[in-house]
């Protein structure tokens, strides 16, 4: 089996953004949020010091899932909802590769919800980017599991009656070791978040708010818009108090076990503001996912980042542990515990 090892070169090559641009025409609607995400991913990868041939992008089906075609890396556009399974198999098989999953809110949370959860609970060392536009883009505008109740769409002309699913909560219920949220239009913050996700060992789960200009334009307007986003998005920073607002004059504080918003003069924040802790138990991050507009700002950034053993490492470790001299003798294996000789 040792005939195909894939050593990682010692001196990682100098890569540029354009090294990750494939020769395929990018086919999203003009103005689609997917473009910005693609650009940030293409910008982030060269900074990681990983050879280009080690990256693999795996997706399901949806507008977002066309992503791999536009990356000049290895890529696999699979079937609807199942991308995490292909990624899990590939990473178990080839731990030397750097595996990314790109999925949508329909792909990842409607048909594919279970695979998502199971990848996360295994803490397999892959990076999952979920482009959440709260709509089915590719099939032309049905409501999705993340659409707000009451969403009027082709399949819900009187408004949807399902309660939405929250990607981050779902990930946290499976005790995700890395959970983050970013917004397509805030490209610097997005790039920084992607970099953190890439560096995390274990399943990194990133929800990216993505504007579908054709079927769901403006769902994230508050946090998308340059003019308003600082007032509506709370940038989480490990060890720092939770302050937001263009003028940094709002904060979050716990009262009677519940979060509340406090206003203050810029620079004079109260001492008891909630301090972000990425390393806390999943309960803390889960509580943060309940900070929602209109009452609260939308938290973005890294909600949780803790180290735990990965499925692929544990699998390899068991194999290492099982390997003993002579324990892989095929003849002996075939002979079994009991056998007999038939003479001539």
């Amino acid at each position: 089996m040792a005939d195909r090892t894939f050593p990682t070169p010692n001196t990682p090559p100098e890569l540029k953004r354009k090294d990750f641009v494939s020769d395929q025409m990018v086919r999203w609607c003009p103005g689609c949020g997917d473009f910005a995400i693609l650009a940030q991913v293409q910008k982030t990868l060269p900074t990681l010091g990983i050879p280009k041939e080690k990256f693999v992008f795996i997706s399901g089906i949806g507008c977002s899932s066309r992503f791999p075609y536009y990356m000049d890396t290895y890529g696999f556009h699979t079937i609807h909802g199942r991308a995490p399974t292909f990624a899990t198999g590939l990473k178990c098989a080839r731990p030397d590769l750097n595996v990314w999953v790109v999925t949508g809110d329909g792909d990842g949370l409607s048909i594919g919800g279970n695979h998502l959860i199971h990848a996360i609970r295994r803490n397999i060392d892959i990076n999952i980017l979920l482009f959440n536009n709260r709509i089915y883009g590719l099939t032309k505008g049905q409501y999705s599991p993340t659409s707000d109740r009451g969403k009027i769409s082709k399949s819900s002309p009187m408004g949807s009656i399902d309660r939405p699913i929250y990607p981050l909560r779902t990930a946290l219920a499976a005790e995700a070791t890395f959970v983050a949220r970013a917004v397509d239009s805030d490209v610097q913050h997005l790039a920084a978040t992607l970099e953190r996700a890439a560096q995390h060992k274990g399943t990194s789960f990133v929800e990216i708010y993505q504007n579908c200009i054709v079927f769901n334009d403006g769902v994230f307007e508050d946090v998308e818009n340059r003019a308003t986003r600082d007032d509506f998005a709370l940038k989480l920073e490990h060890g720092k108090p939770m302050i937001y607002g263009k003028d940094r004059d709002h904060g979050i504080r716990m009262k009677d076990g519940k979060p509340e918003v406090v206003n203050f003069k810029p620079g004079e924040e109260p001492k008891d503001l909630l301090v972000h802790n990425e390393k806390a138990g999943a309960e803390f991050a889960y509580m943060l996912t309940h900070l929602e507009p209109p009452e609260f700002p939308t938290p973005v950034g890294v909600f949780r980042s803790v180290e735990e053993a990965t499925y692929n490492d544990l699998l390899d470790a068991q194999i290492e542990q099982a390997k003993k001299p002579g324990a892989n003798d095929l003849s002996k294996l075939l002979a079994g515990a009991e056998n007999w000789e038939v003479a001539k």
Partner: protein
Amino acid sequence: MPAKTKDVKKKEELDVEEIEAVTIRFAGDSGDGVQLTGGQFTTATAMAGNDLSTLPDFPAEIRAPVGTLPGVSGFQIHFSSRDVLTPGDQPEVLVAFNPAALKANIKDLVKGGTVIVNTDAFTAQNFKKAGIATNPLEDDSLSEYRVVEVPMTMLTGKALEDLGMSATQVSRCKNFFALGIMYWAYGRSLDATLTWIKKKFKKVPTIVEANTRALHAGHAYAETTEIFQHTYSVKKAPIAPGKYRNITGNEATALGLVAAQQLSGHQLFYSTYPITPASDVLHALAKLKSFGVKTVQAEDEIAGVGMAIGASFGGLLAVTGTSGPGLALKAEAIGLAVMTELPLVIINVQRGGPSTGLPTKTEQSDLLQAMYGRNGESPVGVVAPATPGECFTAIIKACRLAMKYRTPVIFLSDGYLGNGSEPWRLPNVDSLPKFDISHDPGQPAEDFKPYKRDEKTLARPWVLPGTKGYEHRIGGLEKQKDTGNVNYEPDNHEEMCRIRAEKIERMTADIPKLSVLGEPKGKVLVVGWGSTYGAITTAVKKAQSEGKSVSAIHLRYINPFPSDLGDILKNFDRVLIPEMNLGQLNMLIRSRYLVDAVGLHKVKGQPFKVSEIKEKIEALLEGKE
């Protein structure tokens, strides 16, 4: 064997009767150790040099209350001084540990056969549980059989009296008592079982002692009480020399996969979701981590196949396993492997359908699902082993075809093959042919075309992630010829559909021609596939020995068909296709070769009997159909 024990002969009159073959069935509660007893008897018989074939019959998946009909477990062994290919049509001897076991099995016994019962289990309470009105040992219902009544529980208890064991513990040893009786009757040696007991229970010396005593006690009981008129001798069979072991189809499949790993130099990756009767392949492989085998228990069947395809993309020997309903769930993903032309082996250990059906019973009703159970024109290879032992070579072949032609291959085993066993001659590992599978792009990086094909096999390059300069993307949308880019052009689509079909046809070059059992021309040709091999071959040989004009061929490859199939079919007046379904191979052969093949269909969750096939052959020869 004797009639009711009442009229047993005197010891001195006992003699040894030589017989050619016998079929014995053990039956009792799951808790009675029936499978274990059968397994031990099998080993002893194999060591005695007989040829043999066995078939366990498990109760439906769920545990049933003790003593009831649904809880009855069975194990049948057929052994002989000649070639044995089936576990026997009808047992001549039935060992029944309780009334339910008697009730469930007696109708299968040959008239005049022997039934050995544990009389201690024949209580009013057990009759009720088995739904029996009167004691069958006392009414007339067994008058056509020879009944040997043995108070096994009591006798075992006596033998273990001073060991200080509870009644339940003692009762658990009675199967060794029964085994002792049978060893005596057929002149088998106790040695192998004694060794096995010592090894198996080495941590609990009392149990070693108890089982040892029970075995000896049964043996002595048979000898001294003279319950049999004579003992039987089944001579050694003319078996090819070599080292043998007993093996089930599922074991052979697992071992074959490990062999394929070694032969191909590609690490084995097996991702699956448990399902009866395929789970044992996972259980076997999970233990083989020392060989570097990676197994993953996935969250469902779709994940199982998805992970395997992911691993295949990564360059491993990727396999997933399941049974009928699971194959249905994997269909969409198998289609993706067809489109992306990645090697993938899918094991389907068929069981009774439709739907959940009869999970523990055997059937061959997934052939058309394997062929056509996907959207679009989506051809895959289909390989079907004929015997438990053959699963070893057949799965190696399936792996080879999948890797060489870069295609999914479905391996159609079934419950009978998977759980049934036969003696298996150990192959010489060094003589197994290595596979030559390359990941070399064979093209310069600047102009790499992931779908540019090998001219002979039509296989596309299997270039692995991590290979510098050959970054490329694959997926489920139609591919442009050569480049593999997404393409919706009309002509390209048709050409690609035809290429994918042609690639599977090209596999014919790697498939051996058929060998005809019997004359190459004649009146009737029996065409089989999969696990019906033993019954068909035995029936055809019998008919041939009676001078009948019948021959047989057996298909181990169904997609593509062996190249000579059409010609062989033409040489016979009638074609008979026995299948454990309602005519699935039949439909493929009729449509392809336009021969008016006659089907013999059995959908009972049970393998064919030799007699069923032989009768049908005769009916055809006599022009009755």
